[in-house]
């Protein structure tokens, strides 16, 4: 019995010791830098080439730039009303956070951050009204703002860029990337991307232009226009939806695709193929189904009351 008690006590002591050690290690790893309100920020930290960088800022701006060094460099100025800036090392990355006093209203002055990071970092930026601009990166990017603008110019492989009421602009991606760009009331613009694209806005215009290589593209808006001004990729699958906005598909040369186009009460205008037919069987709308060239891509476009225009320029 005594021996059993000894074993149990020994095990408990070992467990408690391990927990204490772990807590100490965590505390050490989370050593934080803190800058005071109004002061200029100038901080450098070592960073993994492909580690995670998390940035939280409420108002002002966040500018991220990729570079070839294995460190991050944070500059900028803390806005009046903010509590401090925390830069914490975590086990799998670095967190940069503008901390506000509790129960803050709209009286906080914006904080502008300029952050240089290793090019292949996995970036995650969240802001409320702060604009986000990121460039020269080739890792992954998750950029979200409530009312700020979001702008990304990169070669990232996994991209999410979104804002409720700020404009979203994505330029460039890695090959075979996943690109997700969406907004609620503002415009979304995407160019020079490669891979699988989803671009949406509810009342803003969705635009895709420039040289792209898309295996799948899904563009939609509820009341805004959808403008696609680019080449189609062989084997690509394209879907364009708008309820009351207009859909315009403009191609640099005669496209090589199958087209399935329909509008419930809007007009369809086609400059390079057959004219649309009125669908008498299921509704009052017009439809257009045809093959252009070898039919090596698939294009679907639908509207409820918006017009659809197909043209070659």
């Amino acid at each position, binding site marked *: 019995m005594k021996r059993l008690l000894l074993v149990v006590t020994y095990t408990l002591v070992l467990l408690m010791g391990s927990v204490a050690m772990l807590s100490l290690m965590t505390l050490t790893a989370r050593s934080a830098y803190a800058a005071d309100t109004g002061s200029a920020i100038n901080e450098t930290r070592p960073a993994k080439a492909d580690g995670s960088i998390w940035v939280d800022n*409420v108002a002002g701006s966040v500018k991220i730039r990729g570079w070839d060094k294995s460190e991050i460099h944070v500059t900028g100025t803390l806005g009046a009303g903010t509590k401090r800036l925390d830069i914490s090392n975590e086990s799998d990355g670095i967190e940069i956070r503008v901390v506000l006093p509790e129960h803050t209203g*709209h009286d906080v002055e914006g904080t502008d951050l300029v952050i240089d990071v290793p090019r292949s970092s996995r970036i995650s930026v969240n802001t409320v009204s702060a604009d986000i601009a990121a460039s020269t990166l080739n890792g992954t990017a998750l950029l979200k703002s409530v009312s700020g603008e979001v702008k990304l110019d990169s070669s990232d492989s996994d991209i999410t860029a*979104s804002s409720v009421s700020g404009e979203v602009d994505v330029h460039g991606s890695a090959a075979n990337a996943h690109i997700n760009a969406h907004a*609620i009331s503002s415009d979304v613009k995407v160019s020079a991307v490669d891979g699988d694209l989803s671009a949406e806005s509810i009342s803003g215009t969705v635009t895709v232009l420039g040289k792209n290589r898309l295996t799948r593209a899904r563009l939609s808006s509820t009341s805004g226009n959808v403008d696609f001004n680019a080449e189609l990729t062989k084997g690509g699958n394209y879907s364009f939806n708008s309820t009351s906005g207009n859909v315009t598909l403009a191609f640099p040369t005669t496209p090589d695709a199958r087209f399935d186009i329909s509008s*419930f009460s809007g007009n369809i205008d086609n400059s390079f193929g057959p004219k649309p037919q009125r669908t008498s069987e299921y509704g009052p709308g017009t439809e257009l189904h045809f093959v252009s060239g070898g039919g090596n891509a698939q294009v679907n476009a639908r509207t409820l009351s918006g017009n659809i225009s197909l043209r070659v320029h």
Partner: protein
Amino acid sequence: MNTTPDEKLDKALGRLPRSIEPEHDLWPGIAARIATQRSRRWPRTLWSYAGAVAAVTVIAVSILRVTAPGPAPRSDDSMYAITVPAPQGPADDTPRNLFAAQLASNHNLPPRAQQALLNNMRLLDDSIRRTQAALKKYPNDVNLQALLFNLYEQEAQLMNEAQQAQIQTTVRNTL
């Protein structure tokens, strides 16, 4: 000496190897995937909570829509037929109105974003009603069904964005 089919089968079974080694070692690939999954801290806890809340909201709205009385769409040839709920009456507005009221009472949201969310929720609501009305008249129109499906997806997206925006402006400062 004649052998029965059972004996032949036993012999054949006996000749089979006891175990088969895979053509190549699968463990490095599995280990690499586990390591990748462990190292992924993306999306972070905050967004996981937001996603969970949004998912619950969307599921609740969907259940209310599907279970509320109304004629079911009569489309046999559409992939969307099973996912497009029937047109709804005024009772359907309750979760949406609650959600809108919750949004309107959030004073931490930037006014521009708050207005954008509320306006676009109304816009989606109106578009859904218009599409439902058209679908009621032409229940076999596959394109209308697809448009309605897309509108529901956008509504779910809006609710998700709204939840995340609310969390971003209220919870973040206490973390």
